[in-house]
């Protein structure tokens, strides 16, 4: 029996607009959330989202359907974001780990995390998340929101599993003090 991922791979090979439409409806929210975690901003994300889907249409044949679709999609989105960073340094991201991501928290725009917080705990995390190194934020979001395995994240970010794990640990270590000394 044909699996969902194989159906997606076939649809992408045939550049089937119906399949693309279904994928867009299914993954749009997660794609936006991932790109916000990567860029630390909400504005401009829609353009990256559109470019991502255009690239999915162009290069869809390279998705083989043997693994889950979302890591492949996030990898495409990440490449697009990084290409844009290289072309437009003012959009740039940064990291002390040297992979070129810089948070946009200094840009003076309202924090997307402040605007998107829907719970009290989220509100408390919003500021720290905004100032967190994007590579840590990205790793946290991919692991705990997108529910991806360390191996899948390692493929997306192009770093060893041990590096991904230590980014998650450091991300948690930065955010944890918000709730220390309290009982849940």
């Amino acid at each position, binding site marked *: 029996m044909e699996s969902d991922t194989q159906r997606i791979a076939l649809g992408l090979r045939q*550049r*089937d*607009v119906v399949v*693309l*439409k279904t994928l*867009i*409806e299914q993954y*749009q*929210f997660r794609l*936006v*959330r991932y790109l*916000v975690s990567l860029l630390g901003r*909400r504005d401009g994300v*829609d353009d990256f*989202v*559109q470019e991502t*889907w*255009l690239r999915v*249409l*162009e290069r869809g044949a390279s998705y083989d359907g043997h693994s889950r679709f979302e890591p492949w999609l996030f990898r495409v989105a990440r490449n697009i974001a990084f290409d844009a960073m290289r072309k437009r340094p003012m959009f740039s991201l940064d990291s002390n780990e040297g992979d070129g991501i810089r948070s946009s928290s200094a840009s003076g725009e309202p924090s*997307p*995390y402040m605007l*998107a*917080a*829907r*719970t*009290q*705990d*989220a*509100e*408390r*995390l*919003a500021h720290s*998340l905004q100032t967190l190194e994007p590579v840590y934020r990205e790793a*946290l*979001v991919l*692991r*705990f*929101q997108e529910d991806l*395995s*360390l191996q899948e994240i390692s493929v997306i970010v192009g770093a060893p*599993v041990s590096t991904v*794990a230590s980014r*998650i*640990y450091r991300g*948690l270590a930065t*955010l*944890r*003090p*918000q*709730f*220390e*000394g*309290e*009982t*849940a």
Partner: protein
Amino acid sequence: MNIDHHESFQRMIDESLVGAISAEKEQSLREHLSTCTPCKEYLSASKRVIAGLSGFSFEVNPTLNARILAALRPQAEQVHEVLAHHPDAMRQHNMRFKIWAAFAVALSMSIVGSALVYQVAKLLATPMYFDNAQLQVGVLVFWLLPSFCSALWMFAAPGEKRGVA
């Protein structure tokens, strides 16, 4: 208990949260957590961070999907048009695959067939007074080489003559 001791368990808590802990370590962590308040608090704070991460909801612009589909459609149709007007590339690709498959089948039939012919010829060689060398040359010239050449013909002849549509 010293600080290093708690740190090693807190490290295990991190590993357990990312799903990178062994069953053995998990067991010893569980035992430690049942008696250690600081590590329990560490776990509780970590879990609140993780739960807090789910408390963000980024709204998707309601017109975004339609805008993207409008941009994708012409490109997808362009590709379909190219395939519709230039099916030769696709056909050639399929043809190449079929030729290789036919060659592989013909080659294996040629080898298996030669072995069978050789066995039958060996039975007939004794009453006809042929020696072994003559027999081998005969099978090679009258069977193996012609069948091998027929298999190779797959690559030389146009598709229709190969019987590969």
